[in-house]
């Protein structure tokens, strides 16, 4: 069928061309309206309206909104965003559609409350979100932990944090740390040790990659914050003993003050500054540290690709 073969090859060629063309056009369209579907979230007057719009397929829609929330935060964070307007509405709708999606409350407790650029900086909204979660999942101790976390970390309201931890500790299967944390809130709230417990608990009990990565980064920062003053006091002792600041840690090792050259959690050795301060070699590799940075240092945005 000569004619038929011609038609077939012509149609195949045209089909491939159109496919390529349509992909090209689509990418252009996406660039123009990037995130437009997400922005339509703002047009949904209330989470209840979202329920109605789902025509009964609440579970599926909840999953879809949850995925959108995670990707929204992840992609904006990677681009160095300073605000996350849509995170709260997305999480509100997710949890309205599926009140038992506990990972959403956990996500919100971390990334809604934290100050930008690592979070939306809306701790009050985070509190409301988690309280809604507690109302719908009264037996989940984890939510009380999330609540206490928000009060402790961003709102610095140690009393409310303690209340939350205590309430959570009374639930079945509660993590033993909740009782301990409740106790520490009253006296040692500002301690590094408390912070370390909080972040360890967050890391161990979370199931979300971004939350875990965030917690791990904080733990490393705590390590640095603890180590730097210790190193500085050793340097100070040496200075008092020898009258000069050691140029590097080799001197201290030779003097028997240290067993080996100390390294920070990123594996790089600490540096001794001429004025006796101890600094990390590459502050950019260690987000969240408060000690050991050069003066006037501004931290870049950390990445949570989930690979930690």
């Amino acid at each position, binding site marked *: *069928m*000569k*004619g*038929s073969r011609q038609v077939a090859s012509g149609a195949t060629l045209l089909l491939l061309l159109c496919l390529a063309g349509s992909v090209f056009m689509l990418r252009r369209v996406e660039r123009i309206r990037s995130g437009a579907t997400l922005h339509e979230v703002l047009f949904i007057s209330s989470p209840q309206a979202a329920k109605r719009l789902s025509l009964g397929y609440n579970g599926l829609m909840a999953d879809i909104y949850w995925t959108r929330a995670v990707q929204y935060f992840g992609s904006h964070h990677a681009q160095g965003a300073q605000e996350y307007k849509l995170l709260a509405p997305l999480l509100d709708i997710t949890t309205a559609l599926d009140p038992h999606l506990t990972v959403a409350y956990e996500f919100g407790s971390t990334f809604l409350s934290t100050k930008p650029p690592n979070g939306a900086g809306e701790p009050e909204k985070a509190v409301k979100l988690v309280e809604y979660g507690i109302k719908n999942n009264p037996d989940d101790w984890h939510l009380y932990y999330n609540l206490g976390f928000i009060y402790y970390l961003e709102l610095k309201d140690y009393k409310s944090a303690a209340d939350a931890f205590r309430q959570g500790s009374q639930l079945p299967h509660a993590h033993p740390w909740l009782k301990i944390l409740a106790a520490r809130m009253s006296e040692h709230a500002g301690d590094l040790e408390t912070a370390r417990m909080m972040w360890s608990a967050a890391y161990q009990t979370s199931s979300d990659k971004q939350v875990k990565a965030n917690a791990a980064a904080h733990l490393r920062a705590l390590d640095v914050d603890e180590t730097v003053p210790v190193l500085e006091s050793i340097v100070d002792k040496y200075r008092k003993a020898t009258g000069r600041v050691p140029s590097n840690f080799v001197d201290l090792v030779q003097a028997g003050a240290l067993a080996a050259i100390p390294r920070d959690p990123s594996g790089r050795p600490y540096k001794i500054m001429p004025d006796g301060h101890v600094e990390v070699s590459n502050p950019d590799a260690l987000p969240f540290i408060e000690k050991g940075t050069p003066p006037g240092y501004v931290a870049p945005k950390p990445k949570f690709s989930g690979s930690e």
Partner: protein
Amino acid sequence: MSAIEILGLEKTYAVGFLRKQEKRALHPLHLAIGDGEIFGFLGPNGAGKTTTLKMLMGLVSPSAGSARILQMDFRNPAVKAQIGFLPEQPYFYDYLTARELLDYYGQLSGLGGKDRSLRIRELLGKVGLQQAGDVQLRKFSKGMLQRVGIAQAILHDPKVVFLDEPMSGLDPMGRREVRDLMEQLKQEGKTIFFSTHILLDAEALCDRVAILHQGELKGVGSIATLTAGIKGKVEVFWQGSNIPASMQSLGAECHVTGDTVRAIISEEFQDNAIDLLRRDKLRLISIVPLRKSLEDYFMQQVKPGATSGAGA
């Protein structure tokens, strides 16, 4: 010159759940139909007649073989302008009127505007649908649909016309009309290739016939040639209701109606029958030779290799 040459067309279907088995719908077929002939394509249901026609029309692709119509390859689009086709039990767009349907088909066949309206009027008259031109086809009877079907087949004055079971579903009057139409087309010099399983129609119309059974060609030729080899029969009437004993051994079929017996026996036993009657002192009324019919030939061809008379 052959109007239609079928050169080894065959069709095998893959059947079964996993398409592993093969079903042969048509064994390689070789046939030549002359210009201006009325050719009958006969066979029981499921013999492969419609499959052959569909392949010639390009609706189904053959597994092997080819054909030439009017000396052109049958797949050549130019052929389509010269042929007309009436499918079996046709169904047309029922939301159109007869006139609209023919107009649409005329457009597709490339007939110009004025030409079209003229032809449509002419054809509606020819097939006896003048009154029903503006009635929606969904209101048409089976016979009327068949007539519209023939109209669309000859709308563009094709040289060759293919008809698949053109008499199906028609009452005797309708059948007569279609027969007359086909005769008329032959007068106009067209070649007609039609398939049917009604042998009487074939006998009345065809110059030559071919018999197809279970996908195989069982015989081709004029009716006279085909029936020549058949043994003739005679019809014997006698008075009374007695049947001589040995009449049965002659292979006679006897029917008693009131005071007369009617028997059908082979020509060769004619004299034996007369003797039997005289012996039993029965009064012979008449002996009439029966016409050799196509049906006899047909049955002969169809019976021997038949595993089932009524195919799939």
